[in-house]
């Protein structure tokens, strides 16, 4: 049996995107249910596995960061743990976005993440690989690529999976999350309003909190609203990564062998994104990456 490196990964991500029926590039959010408030930067659609530099997530956001949870070399029904990779932060490089563009590229829920350029920063080892939509035309613009190819790399629909979400995140009651969030924000607001001398920054912070509370309350009033219901859904992805790869570090020492990363040996990745939290503009990711060994 060929040896395989298997990494399980997961964590909360940032996904600051406008939602239908807003145009894809709506910067602040108007008709959908996700918004940039106050002095927050414009919505950028970028999927961030780690908190970007100079950016502060909203208060009460679950800690952002996707990490390798478990890494093993698997061969002949035996497993050898790889501590160099366990706990390693994972990043998606190059401003990856869910590319649906208001259904012009794919139906809703079937969109790919473009570009998909994954880097894993372990101890003494860095792995990086791209997953171009067309292996020999990695720079072809996404809007020129056929829907059938996009869907090979796209999600398989927006799937209602409350148990998947509950088991992964501990969230079984989306409405309760919103109710608790409102309570926490109201406390924050009361503190701000109790200040004797409020600065301009305090006023902006209060504006943001009030806007968040108002949006959460829309969902609380009607839990079938996407502000609440979205947290029970996942989008599942599964595709080969057969683009350019980079491996830096002592593979023998950290990985227990040499991995394959040429065009004939794709890395296979499968994961879901779900538990979308439109208030925090974040979501949860859980999945696994499989890499073949040469030796």
């Amino acid at each position: 049996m060929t040896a395989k490196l298997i990494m399980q990964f997961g964590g909360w991500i940032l996904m600051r995107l406008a939602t239908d029926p807003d145009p894809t590039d709506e910067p602040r959010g108007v008709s959908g249910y996700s918004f940039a408030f106050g002095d927050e930067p414009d919505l950028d659609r970028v999927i961030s596995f780690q908190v970007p530099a100079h950016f502060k997530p909203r208060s009460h956001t679950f800690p952002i960061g996707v990490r390798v949870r478990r890494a093993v070399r698997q061969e002949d029904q035996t497993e050898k743990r790889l501590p160099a990779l366990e706990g390693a932060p994972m990043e998606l490089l190059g401003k990856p976005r869910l590319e649906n563009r208001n259904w012009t590229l794919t139906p809703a829920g079937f969109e790919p993440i473009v570009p998909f350029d994954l880097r894993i920063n372990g101890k003494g080892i860095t792995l990086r690989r791209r997953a171009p939509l067309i292996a020999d035309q990695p720079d072809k613009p996404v809007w020129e690529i056929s829907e059938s190819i996009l869907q090979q790399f796209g999600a398989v629909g927006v799937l209602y999976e409350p148990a998947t979400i509950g088991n992964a995140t501990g969230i079984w009651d989306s409405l309760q999350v919103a109710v608790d969030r409102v309570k926490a924000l109201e406390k924050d607001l009361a503190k701000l309003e109790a200040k004797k001398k409020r600065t301009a920054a305090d006023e902006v912070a209060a504006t943001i909190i009030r806007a968040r509370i108002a949006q959460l309350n829309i969902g609380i009033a009607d839990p079938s609203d996407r502000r609440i219901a979205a947290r029970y859904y996942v989008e599942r992805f599964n595709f080969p990564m057969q683009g350019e790869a980079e491996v830096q570090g002592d593979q023998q020492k950290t990985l227990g062998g040499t991995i394959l990363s040429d065009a004939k040996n794709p890395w296979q990745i499968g994961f879901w994104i779900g538990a979308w939290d439109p208030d925090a503009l974040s979501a949860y990711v859980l999945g696994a990456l499989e890499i073949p060994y040469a030796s």
Partner: protein
Amino acid sequence: MPSLKTHKPQHIAGDAPLQVKRRNRLANLLTEAAEIEHDVMAQYLFAAFSLKKAISEGGVNYAQLEELRGWATTMLLVARQEMEHLGLVTNLLTAIGEAPNFRRPNFPIPARTYPMNLPSSLDAFSPDVVLRFVCYEMPRRVNKKNRRYLEQYLPNFAPSQYDGIARTYLEIRELFHSIEAGDLFIGPPSAQFLSGGNSVVARGRIYPQKTTGKPPPIYDTELRPVTDLQSANAVIEQIIDEGEGADDDDPNSHFARFLDMHRQLMAETAKDPNFKPARAVLSNPRLASGDEGAAAATGIHYVTNPDTAQVMELFDMAYSTMVLMLMRYFAHTDESDADLIGLQDTAFFPMMTVGIRPLGEILTQLPAQEPDAEWRAGPSFVLPLRLQLLPHRRSAWRVILGELQMLTAKAEQAQKNQNFSPAVRERLTLLYENFARMTMNFQDAMHARKMQ
């Protein structure tokens, strides 16, 4: 074949001349209702596009920007529901065997044109404009509190001065009841368009599911089929409830939403005299014709900045192409389900969302004149004279494809224009890519039917 002179018409149930007269009246009212829904929809969109979005635009603070966002959300929601009403009226028209009506006069339109006795004009958001929107959506009865409020701004106010749209729909309902159903609902059920589980379910679409067992509303809009008196009634009730409201206390009616907006706007303006929510957008902007004298007389304002004119031209083309596709969609002949999906996938959600709205928003940020006199441009919503239903499938699709290709070519030119700011160019680039993609998708649908 009998000669025309000797042929006697077959008996029609009931009082035939009266039935035909009522039917014609009904068709006329529905045709006018379609124009009105289209007319107010464009005005609401125009006002929404004129609202500021950033502190850097001046005249607003962060808290006020949140209010502005709420107003924009409301206006876009109401505009979507007016589009829905246009679709529902079209379903009513085709159910009785009449033609859809997507035409209307260009702006500005004099008050005497429609039963609400108010002019139609593309204007930036302001207290007067919001008050006009309140009047468009006037119910037949207004409670004391609202009446007192409106009396402050409308001298000798009485709802009957403005409730023309409400009265129109009530007469439409009465006429539906007064005509023999067997003679009335003669249109093909396949012409009915409905949201959610419609007759042309697009592939792979997943809509939010509710437990009511009926097609769920999509983004607060719900298109229902009309096949008999009961379904016609339901559709008319929906239009009345969402517009003027089942009663004047309905907080979700368009009337109540605009009245609330007016109250909030007046309160904020009283609190902060420096509050300026809208960009300085020209009323009824049009592409320059050089005929400035006539423009002053008719309330049209020509846009003379050549770069802005490039974007206006794009808007005009995108809008007329969308209307052309809607005409064909609702009056399709021998299109297959796959063809209809091809039209639907281009005309509905994408063209409105990725074309009309971004272009409208961009225009209200661009200088209208050369040299810049502080006025901004806006979407003209001009319907060219030639725009009519293209009756033959093969040629209609070829004409539409030609329009889409020209739109893509113009968008490609516009995104290369270095005179635009990087932010505008970025939006225009995405727009070009989206138009190009929509054209490719449409072309694929044509190839599938060997129409090229």
